[in-house]
């Protein structure tokens, strides 16, 4: 190959490279620009919490990271790759759906509304990715699935259908389903916003355990307490930009920006 080394596609981001590297990311829906230049880096092993009022673009940014939305400008590198593109000879080539799917397999995502597959049991939900995408043997995937359900405290619910589980249990199954792919990065899109208040704790406990195990996590949340306790970096978003980010104790305890101050005054 004669291509310069800098243009060679990276197999994976190295240990010191950020897993998410956003530079001036722009995204519009019609005439509304929901992301107006996002700069954010998530290092391996870090937990980064995105906070901010609704409509500030947090969820949209998270969805861009997993290519559920396509960015309109700037550059977004995940796991060392341009999201949705392949860089070759100084050009970005758009990827096929198949290649995009293969890249998504390394990134787990947990949704606000759980989105478990209702026609499959908890265990089958967890096995789906490994069996279909990674082509694991069913018995092997089932063993690992039971392990993961046990890890989120639901070993006894393996054969339950989602409709037979509480919201908190469904969300924990969803986390196990994401973990089954051995993701390098886990994305959480307001994972506790659809839960009854008394069920929020059980999901946050699981997330806390994952963080303690060194999982790299990008979390969109309204749980200020969780962010302050678990996050390595807290970023506050408003109107499509990150207005301040850094140590959560500083950002959430002693915010400098007036938007952050007024938001925290309202939610605390």
């Amino acid at each position, binding site marked *: 190959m004669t291509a310069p080394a800098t243009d060679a596609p990276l197999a994976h981001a190295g240990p010191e490279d950020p897993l998410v590297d956003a530079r001036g990311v722009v995204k519009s829906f019609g005439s509304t620009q929901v992301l107006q230049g996002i700069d954010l880096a998530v290092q391996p092993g870090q937990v980064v919490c995105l906070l901010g009022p609704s409509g500030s673009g947090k969820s949209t940014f998270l969805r861009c990271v*997993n290519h559920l939305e396509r960015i309109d400008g700037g550059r977004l590198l995940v796991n060392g790759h341009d999201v949705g593109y392949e860089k070759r000879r100084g050009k970005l080539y758009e990827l096929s759906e198949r290649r995009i*799917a293969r890249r*998504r397999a390394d990134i787990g*995502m947990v949704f606000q509304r759980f*989105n478990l597959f209702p026609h499959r*049991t908890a265990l089958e939900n967890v096995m789906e990715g490994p069996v279909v995408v990674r082509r694991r043997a069913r018995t092997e995937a089932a063993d690992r699935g039971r392990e993961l359900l046990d890890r989120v405290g639901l070993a006894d619910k393996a054969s339950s*259908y989602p409709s*037979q589980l509480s919201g908190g249990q469904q969300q924990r199954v*969803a986390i196990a389903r994401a973990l089954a*792919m051995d993701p390098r990065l886990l994305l959480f899109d307001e994972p506790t916003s659809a839960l009854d208040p008394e069920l929020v704790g059980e999901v946050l406990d699981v997330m806390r355990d994952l963080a303690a195990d060194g999982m790299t996590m990008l979390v969109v949340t309204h749980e200020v307490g969780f962010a302050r306790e678990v996050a390595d970096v807290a970023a506050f978003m408003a109107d499509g930009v990150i207005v301040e980010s850094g140590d959560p104790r500083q950002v959430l305890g002693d915010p400098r920006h007036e938007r952050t101050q007024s938001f925290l005054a309202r939610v605390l």
Partner: protein
Amino acid sequence: MPTTVAPHEPATTPTDAQLPVVPLRHWGRFTVGALVLAVSVWFLLAVGRNPNLDWPTVGEYLFAPLTFRGLFVTVWLTFAGMVMGIVGGTVVAVMRLSSNPVLRVVAGVYIWAFRGTPILIQIIFWGFLGAFIPTISVTVPFTDVVLFSAPTSQLVPATVAALLALGLNEVAYAAEIVRAGIQSIDKGQTEAAKSLGLTPAQTLRRVVLPQAMRVIVPPMGNETLTMLKTTALVSVIAGQDLMSNLQAVYAQNFKVIPLLIVASIWFLVLTTLLTVPQRWLEQRFGRGVDPGATRRPLSRALMPRRTR
């Protein structure tokens, strides 16, 4: 005399819990019911004892070999037509939802044409295909070499024409049902599947279609019943089905009414039988939604009524 009796209550009165209950007599309901029953019995007797109904003839043809031959073709046409409709309909539905505009338009025009013209016209068209395309030949492209050539009427006999008409028509209806089913599935399901790394085809096959089946099965059951009954129309091109065969009989012996009764009895038997697989399928695809549907769907289908 005991002194424990309360002053206001006589000792003979039972407590409230023991009071006898007198049910309301629904006199109006009873009267109307009796009246309707009487009229129905009178009507059935009047019709059933009409000599023109000619029960002996009904009995004679009900189990005649000719009837069974027709019945076989009718069942075969229904089954093959529905298989064609469902397979083709799924393809057309996916085309209609495709991001390729050419596929979308072609699927749309197909549905528009086949739903917009009477099935009777379509049946006659396929029956008289020979008048439109007299011979069908397969040639090597860009040469004069003919690999195969035969008159259309020989290649497409009446039964095949009937199947083409029913099947191609069903494709259009099935496509709309499948499309509605696919579109009824929450977008979050697709996103969850994508986030696991499933390709669009895997997402459709493993996540969207199985859930859409719950929405698709009941109207498909209706389509099957309609298809079964529509086979009677292929008698206009002598499709060898039940209706064609019986029609051929009454064209000769003029016993129209008894032979129509024979056909009706068999259609009722078949439509009744069809409800069993439909109920089974509905329960099979209700897994995870209807909590009771997870176990032994067949036994539930056969014994559907259970007190709640």
